[in-house]
């Protein structure tokens, strides 16, 4: 396989969407394990076909557009998040010979896509013409714009160490040492910001069920809801693979396994970690989230960048 060939693109697209769909089952089973339950185990062996059942359900559900909604934005919103997250996968190097594009602005491209992803949530909530949806998208807008800042700044330490925005170059720069060691603070901030960007628990404030129904996708049903749903899982996969690439050496590992398997294993660990976060940590209040970000994470990430730069200059 060569980088950027049609076959590679098709395989990556299929794998990524397949993994995102499987996560429906993985997440429910893992949550079950951690809560001393069993989770879905009826459909097929170990409940594996639950994914198929969910798919059939979501495809055949009535796809209803409320009469009071702004149709143009209402239909556009779920398409944006899917497109944007899938586009972000274009710059991720999965293995030495697997990938779609080696862009010299790889990280920036991912950040740009993440910032455009905010529109999906905002338009979805705004066009629904519903109080809960509006509240959810207001929260989402503030949360995503704020956490993008720390996400970008926490990455700059890695960029400074490797001297490139190209994700493949960054992986090659980690041959001696994974960046998680010199950039541990950057890693923690990126992890937190990543959870907030993909608005999963504990930072699922835009869609907090207990407070505001389902937040921005209150009015959505059928496949339009499904796209929000799969988009969230795709975001989870994206953040996990980004952490793997940026801080844990990407595909590198002992030679007894092929590189792409190492990549999948490392990303899988982070996906499980995100599910553990969902199982364990309660949701903070909205103002706590904002003040935690701006008053604690922002100074910390700036300090991290400053110290990293100073150390690089000293050597």
């Amino acid at each position, binding site marked *: 396989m060569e980088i950027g060939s049609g076959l590679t693109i098709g395989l990556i697209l299929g794998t990524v969407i397949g993994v995102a769909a499987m996560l429906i089952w993985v997440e429910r089973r893992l949550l079950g*394990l*951690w809560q*001393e339950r069993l989770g879905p185990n009826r459909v097929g062996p170990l409940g594996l076909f639950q994914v198929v059942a969910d798919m059939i359900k979501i495809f055949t559900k009535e796809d209803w557009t409320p009469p009071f909604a702004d149709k143009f934005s209402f239909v556009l919103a779920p398409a944006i998040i899917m497109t944007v997250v899938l586009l972000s996968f274009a710059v991720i190097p999965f293995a030495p010979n697997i990938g779609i594009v080696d862009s010299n602005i790889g990280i920036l491209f991912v950040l740009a896509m993440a910032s455009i992803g905010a529109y999906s949530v905002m338009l979805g909530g705004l066009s629904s013409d519903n109080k809960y949806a509006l509240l959810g998208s207001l929260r989402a807008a503030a949360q995503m714009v704020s956490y993008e800042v720390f996400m970008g700044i926490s990455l700059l330490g890695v960029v400074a160490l490797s001297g490139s925005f190209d994700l493949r170059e960054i992986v090659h720069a980690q041959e001696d040492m994974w960046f998680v060691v010199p950039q541990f603070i950057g890693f923690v901030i990126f992890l937190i910001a990543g959870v907030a960007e993909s608005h999963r628990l504990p930072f699922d404030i835009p869609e907090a069920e207990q407070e505001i129904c389902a937040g921005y996708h209150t009015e959505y049903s059928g496949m339009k809801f499904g796209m929000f749903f799969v988009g969230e899982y795709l975001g989870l996969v994206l953040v996990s693979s980004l952490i793997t690439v940026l801080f844990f050496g990407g595909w590198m590992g002992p030679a007894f396994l092929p590189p792409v398997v190492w990549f999948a294993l490392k990303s899988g660990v982070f996906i499980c970690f995100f599910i553990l976060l969902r199982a*364990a*940590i309660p949701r903070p209040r909205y103002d706590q989230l904002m003040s935690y970000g701006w008053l604690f994470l922002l100074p910390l990430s700036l300090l991290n960048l400053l110290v990293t730069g100073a150390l690089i200059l000293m050597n």
Partner: protein
Amino acid sequence: MFKLIQDTLISQVVTLWNVFRHLFVKADTVEYPDQQPYMFPRWRGRIILSRDPDGEERCVACNLCAVACPVDCIALQKAETDDGRWYPEFFRINFSRCIMCGFCEEACPTHAIQLTPDFEMAEYKRQDMVWEKEDLLISGTGKYHDYNFYRVAGLAIAGKDKGEALNEDKPVDVRSLLP
């Protein structure tokens, strides 16, 4: 500063670890249709009407159960046989209203109405949740095997006059002067 780190970082990591350890704990779930749970004999489930040891209906249609019922799901109509025994002409329980509280069982003076450990009463039609006397009556005595109301009660029926019940004295002749 230390308190902030304690609140935001350390306590969260401790929580994560504690939840992670549940991976190695056996699940509490009972896989119900495959694995039947043990039901205690005095569990309050489906209501039945029992018979006395002679095989007659215990219910004397006193309506106490219908009065005690907090959701008014019991309806019955009194009737009388030629020998003076009371019985319900119809006895109807609407199980879609019943809350299995057991008040009817406590109110019943004759141990006729009893609650059983059965709880699987799902139906496709709501009307099927209304049970008539034929559905409710069982052929046995339920939890109280020896009790027979007409043998201990003072009421006169055919074949048993006043004073002939168990542990009952002859009626006092109030017109006599003798003690």
